[in-house]
């Protein structure tokens, strides 16, 4: 442990006393900042000496390269730029061997009497800020806490302080990271990974430097590399030199140990569903639990007189598979850990029994996180346990006591993780390994796994004393398996039967341990029928549905074929689960459901192959994800924009947000408009206000195509131009089938004007995929070299291209004209240039009919048999070559001219851009942040995506009703072709504003009937336009006031509504608290829980409603902070206080209950983690009978006096 022997004995007594005295004096001050420089210096000096004597903390600070607060060793601090201000990060948990405390700003401070040394545990959640004084000293102008750190603690601080700075989004990423990591149990038990690689990966993942799929790839890579270690360390010797493996002393293992680390509060058992499941805890909950760990330690010294702890920190237990296939707890032991062990080291090895478990048994070690509050220590314990158990031992499960795993829970957790009997049959006792009689030194594939591992040990490849033995063992096993797999594929007959059988068993039992290199040799495959080939495509299509994929995975890995269980695991409803199972049945993966007998559905396919299919599907999805990431780095802005929109869309934002693009790529409005125009022209987004993404697949394909075929320089030029999906269909241009083909998108009508000479003839239907024209300048090709299908496509594409280019020129011309009109001083010369551009463009398009005519003539001759197909091809090519020579220069010149005009316009002063953009983007961002802050953003977004259409309609109706020119807006929508939306909006708009006197945007049938003046006031305030925009232009102050009034009135109305509703809706789960439920009657005992006033007299006046509301609001905030729902609070409050105290020292006590109890009084909000305050509040409730505050020391003395 980090702080081992950190306090020199010689110093301990005298220094402690001195420091204690100093600190006591500091503590008398209201705040640290009130100390004079001299006093601060004096205090710092004490710490300095203390620190220097120990010689640890200072070094750690300089290693971090960060500024250290004063006194030395207090904080991890960073100067904000060169502002002279320091951001100080205080870890959630800090421990210091100091006597006392500092300040009441933070949630501090507990003192723990242990072995005569006052020990301080602090949980601090706020960063403090320093300011450098002119004198060079630092002034703490938010308050802090004096603590010191060892280097190891600093490491933790560095990690934890990041957590303090996390946004809601980052927290979400962290949770996702944890979830992903938990699917790699072998890595989580690897110390180097856990302490080094993991934090780096976590940081990158949170910073979105790597995607989720990227993370999986990276973890796979790390895992694979780990598996390759034996090769790097000691390459497999050539067969002729390979020694015979010695006879192993113990039977070789048939399986690997799985260490599932549930410690650290990563999981809890979710019993809300029909089946208990493991549920990851949120970071905040983890934070609480982490604190709870300390808390627990504090509660544990039940024999503080002797300084001896009787802390049972490890409960090794064994579970064994019962007859029914489920696991049963067969025995449970306890280990007593001494204080020294608890504080400094992992438990002695000899204390851990040498387990002798067979393959059907599992060792459970629960409560380890309580013991090992330090990551490295926890890891060390895991490693010790791993090493210390026989190689043939079964899995080890490290549980977490804070998840309240009683007997049943342990078993249940194991049953969640362990496959069923059929998947995990008891290991067959293996015969004594016999030297394979091959007549030569055996190859690796001639050895059983046990023989190979023994050989590795003999050769020194595996060193049982190595700190990384577990990791090396895993790598060696993986190497062995992959070698067997390769040999089975290459020459199955060379693999002895016993090895083949062992391998087949192992791969079927633990296929997830094998990498993809495992062959599919029939000799090693399993008995399940092959999936029908023709079904694969259909299945892979289904796998695009992530929920289906997850369902399939559950079926594969846990053999869940029960709809209730599946619903629970997938966090969905039974109907959906049934639907998923039916889809699985349709794919032939599981057997049909028999309504009469209702037997469990069987898995019909080979599970290994199903896994491969899933992996393949994931691979393709990853490829797309990686393409997006790649595209985000593209030099082409358009590509970057597509990638960003696609990425955002995958996050549930199916709209092209101007603000997003502007912010991300630092674009101005004009450039963004151009991009949107092009996106619309390319058919990728819808041309409406929201710019809904029309075709995600097309976007992905577009990026993929670019990724696979980077554009040449010429193509890049083409891509700079907006593309049109409109396709010009020349008349009578035969394709290879002598048919005229091609359809166009009917939605695009902008230039489909019969009067417009540039408007080509459009047909309706599906757009023809755009083809890249062949290089016509290469000259005429012969019949032999020219593909038959080329001419028609070429001709069509070429003419399309002319029209498309011309159209784009005109679009640009129109936009230029629009912008020209917005100039502060429009330049008539530019308008002339634009007019000239039109003429130039017409010159090009005017030539098209001639080309068309010539091509049609050639086509007719071919139709009539006048020329054969080859001759037609040659003729067509000639026409195109000529057209190319005539038209292209014109179009190129026109493009140059429009570019020049655009540049010219851009250089002129522009009218101010729409200033609402930034505000809307901010509002949207704030909304997203609210969603992120909520309890389950993913679920909310998923739900929103379903319900969005209707709510958007509500929003639009409301806004158009409030639009002032609502009808005009409607007309605009209609004119833009969005008739459906316009009609809906109009309908709503008319409903809401049919008369001269405005009414609310839509009828409020219920709320208007509510009683109360406030309701009316709010209604009126919303109804009456003059409340917001008076007839005369209001002053800024007036406007601010009225809006503020409206908002205040709204809050009051909501509260009133909450009180008046017969059945109030469930309270908000997030801190977006629209409605604050009143506390259930009697739940909160004001007398008991409200804090005494400063004079010590209790408030006796009845609370006003307003105070009660404020109190409730406060309570809700507290509950939110501690991750509790109000209903949970209620149930905890029902717990008799006595019972609570009885459970007070119970390690299995639900920490949430403790926390909730502590927060029972809303006024202790800033002290929710402070035990001292909690005790303080509990004391006057009758248990102690004390009316005055108790310090923790007093509390302990009291507890001792009553024999606790």
């Amino acid at each position, binding site marked *: 442990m980090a702080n081992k022997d950190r306090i020199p004995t010689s110093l301990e007594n005298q220094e402690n006393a001195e420091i204690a005295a100093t600190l006591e004096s500091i503590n008398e001050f209201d705040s640290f900042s009130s100390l004079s420089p001299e006093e601060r210096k004096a205090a710092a000096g004490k710490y300095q000496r203390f620190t220097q004597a120990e010689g640890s903390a200072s070094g750690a600070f300089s290693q971090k390269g960060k500024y250290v607060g004063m006194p030395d060793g207090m904080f991890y601090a960073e100067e904000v730029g060169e502002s002279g201000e320091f951001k100080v990060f205080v870890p959630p948990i800090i421990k210091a061997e100091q006597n006392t405390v500092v300040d009441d700003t933070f949630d501090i401070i507990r003192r723990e009497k242990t072995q005569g040394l006052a020990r301080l545990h602090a949980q601090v959640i706020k960063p403090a800020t320093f300011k450098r004084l002119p004198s060079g000293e630092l002034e703490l102008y938010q308050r802090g806490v004096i603590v010191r750190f060892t280097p190891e603690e600093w490491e933790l601080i560095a990690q934890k302080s990041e957590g303090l700075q996390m946004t809601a989004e980052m927290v979400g990423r962290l949770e996702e990271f944890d979830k992903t990591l938990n699917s790699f149990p072998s890595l989580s038990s690897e110390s180097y990974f856990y302490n080094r690689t993991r934090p780096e990966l976590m940081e990158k993942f949170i910073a979105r430097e790597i995607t989720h799929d990227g993370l999986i790839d990276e973890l796979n890579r790390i895992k694979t590399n780990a598996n390759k270690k034996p090769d790097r360390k000691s390459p497999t010797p050539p067969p002729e030199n390979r020694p015979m493996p010695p006879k192993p002393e113990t039977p070789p293992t048939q399986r690997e140990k799985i260490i599932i680390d549930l410690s650290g509060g990563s999981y809890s058992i979710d019993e809300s569903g029909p089946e208990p499941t493991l549920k990851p805890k949120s970071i905040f909950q983890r934070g609480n639990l982490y604190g709870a760990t300390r808390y627990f330690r504090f509660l544990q010294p039940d024999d503080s007189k002797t300084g001896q702890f009787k802390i049972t920190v490890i409960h090794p237990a064994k579970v064994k598979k019962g007859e029914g296939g489920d696991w049963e707890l067969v025995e449970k032991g306890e280990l007593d850990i001494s204080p020294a062990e608890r504080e400094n080291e992992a438990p002695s090895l000899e204390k851990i029994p040498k387990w002798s478990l067979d393959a059907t048994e599992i060792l459970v070690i629960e409560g380890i996180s309580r013991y090992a509050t330090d990551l490295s220590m926890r890891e060390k314990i895991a490693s010790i346990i791993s090493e210390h158990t026989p190689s043939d031992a079964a899995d080890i499960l490290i549980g977490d006591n804070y998840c309240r795993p009683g007997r049943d829970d342990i078993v249940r957790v194991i049953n969640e993780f362990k496959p069923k009997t059929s998947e995990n049959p008891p290991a067959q006792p293996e015969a004594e390994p016999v030297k394979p009689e091959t007549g030569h030194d055996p190859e690796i594939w001639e050895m059983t796994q046990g023989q190979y591992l023994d050989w590795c040990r003999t050769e020194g490849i595996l060193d049982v004393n190595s700190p990384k033995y577990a990791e090396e063992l895993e790598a060696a096993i993986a190497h062995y398996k992959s070698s067997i797999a390769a040999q089975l594929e290459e020459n199955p007959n060379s693999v002895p039967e016993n090895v083949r059988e062992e391998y087949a068993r192992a791969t079927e039992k633990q296929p997830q341990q094998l990498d993809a290199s495992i062959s599919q040799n029939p000799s090693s495959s399993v008995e399940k029928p092959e999936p029908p080939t023709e079904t694969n495509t259909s299945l892979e299509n289904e796998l695009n549905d992530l929920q289906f994929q997850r369902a399939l995975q559950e079926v594969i890995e846990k053999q869940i074929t029960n709809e209730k269980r599946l619903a629970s695991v997938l966090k969905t409803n039974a109907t959906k689960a049934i639907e998923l199972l039916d889809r699985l049945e349709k794919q032939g993966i599981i057997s049909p459901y028999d309504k009469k007998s209702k037997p469990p559905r069987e898995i019909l396919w080979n599970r290994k192959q199903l896994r491969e299919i899933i992996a393949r599907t994931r691979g393709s999805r990853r490829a797309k994800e990686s393409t997006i990431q790649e595209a985000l780095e593209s030099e082409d802005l358009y590509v970057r924009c597509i990638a960003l929109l696609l990425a955002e869309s995958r996050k549930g934002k199916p709209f092209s947000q101007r603000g997003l693009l502007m912010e991300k790529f630092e674009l101005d409005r004009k450039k963004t408009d151009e991009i949107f125009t092009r996106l619309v022209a390319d058919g990728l987004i819808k041309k409406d206000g929201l710019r809904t993404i029309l075709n995600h697949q097309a976007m992905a394909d577009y990026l993929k195509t670019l990724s696979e075929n980077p554009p040449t320089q010429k193509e890049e030029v083409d891509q700079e131009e907006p593309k049109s999906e409109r396709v010009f269909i020349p008349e009578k241009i035969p394709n290879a089938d002598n048919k005229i083909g091609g359809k166009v998108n009917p939605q695009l009508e902008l230039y489909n004007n019969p009067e417009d000479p540039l408007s080509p003839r459009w047909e309706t239907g599906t757009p023809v995929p755009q083809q890249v024209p062949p290089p016509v300048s290469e000259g005429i090709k012969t019949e032999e070299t020219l593909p038959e299908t080329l001419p028609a496509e070429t001709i069509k594409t070429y003419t399309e291209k002319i029209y498309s280019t011309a159209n784009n020129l005109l679009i640009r011309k129109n936009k230029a004209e629009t912008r020209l009109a917005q100039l502060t001083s429009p330049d008539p010369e530019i308008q002339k240039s634009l007019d000239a551009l039109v003429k130039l463009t017409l010159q090009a398009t005017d030539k098209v009919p001639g080309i068309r005519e010539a091509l049609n003539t050639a086509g007719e001759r071919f139709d009539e048999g006048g020329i054969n197909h080859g001759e037609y091809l040659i003729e067509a090519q000639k026409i195109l070559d000529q057209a190319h020579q005539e038209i292209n220069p014109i179009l190129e010149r026109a493009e140059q001219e429009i570019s020049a005009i655009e540049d010219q316009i851009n250089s002129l002063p522009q009218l101010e851009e729409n200033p609402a953009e930034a505000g809307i983007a901010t509002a949207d961002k704030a909304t997203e942040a609210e969603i992120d802050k909520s309890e389950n953003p993913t679920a909310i977004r998923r739900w929103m995506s379903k319900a969005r259409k209707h709510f958007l309609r509500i*929003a*639009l109706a*409301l806004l158009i009703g409030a639009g*002032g020119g609502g009808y005009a807006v409607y007309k605009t929508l209609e004119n833009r072709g969005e008739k459906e939306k316009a009609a809906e909006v109009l309908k709503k708009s008319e409903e809401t504003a049919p008369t001269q006197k405005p009414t609310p945007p839509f009828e409020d049938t219920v709320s208007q009937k509510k009683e109360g003046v406030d309701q009316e006031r709010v209604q009126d305030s919303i109804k009456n336009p003059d409340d917001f925009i008076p007839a005369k232009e209001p002053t800024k102050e007036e406007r601010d006031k009225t*809006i503020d009034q409206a908002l205040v009135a709204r809050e009051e109305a909501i509260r009133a509504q909450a009180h008046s509703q017969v059945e109030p809706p469930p309270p908000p789960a997030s801190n977006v608290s629209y409605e604050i439920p009143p506390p259930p009657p009697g739940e909160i005992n004001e007398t008991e829980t409200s804090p005494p006033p400063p004079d010590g007299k209790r408030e006796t006046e009845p609370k006003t409603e307003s105070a009660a509301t404020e109190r409730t609001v406060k309570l809700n905030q507290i509950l939110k902070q501690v991750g509790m729902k109000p209903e949970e609070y209620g149930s905890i409050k029902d717990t008799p206080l006595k019972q609570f105290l009885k459970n007070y020292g119970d390690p299995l006590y639900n920490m949430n209950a403790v926390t909730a109890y502590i927060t029972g009084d809303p006024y202790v909000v800033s002290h929710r983690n402070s035990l001292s305050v909690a005790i303080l509040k509990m004391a006057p409730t009758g248990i102690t009978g004390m009316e005055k505050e108790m310090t923790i020391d007093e509390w302990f003395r009291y507890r001792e006096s009553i024999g606790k």
Partner: protein
Amino acid sequence: MLDIFKTLKLENLSDEEKAEIIAQIAEPLSKRIMLYAYEHLSETDRAELETLADQADESKISAFIKSKLPGLDQIASIEALKIIEEVRKKI
């Protein structure tokens, strides 16, 4: 009735631009309304609303929302006000 464009002093915008602003504001507004709805509907009600949304029966959805979230109109109005105020501050 509150006039968005008057409040924002954007009366002179073209209808096209006004429509765009409305469409843009509708986005965060609808999200806020949905967030409110999500938090105030029971899990069963949320599922039912999803089902109704799948059926795309607007009248049923409207009736459902009105019955389950009687205060939604007010919330929507006030959230709109808040957003407009946020926008106004940025202008």
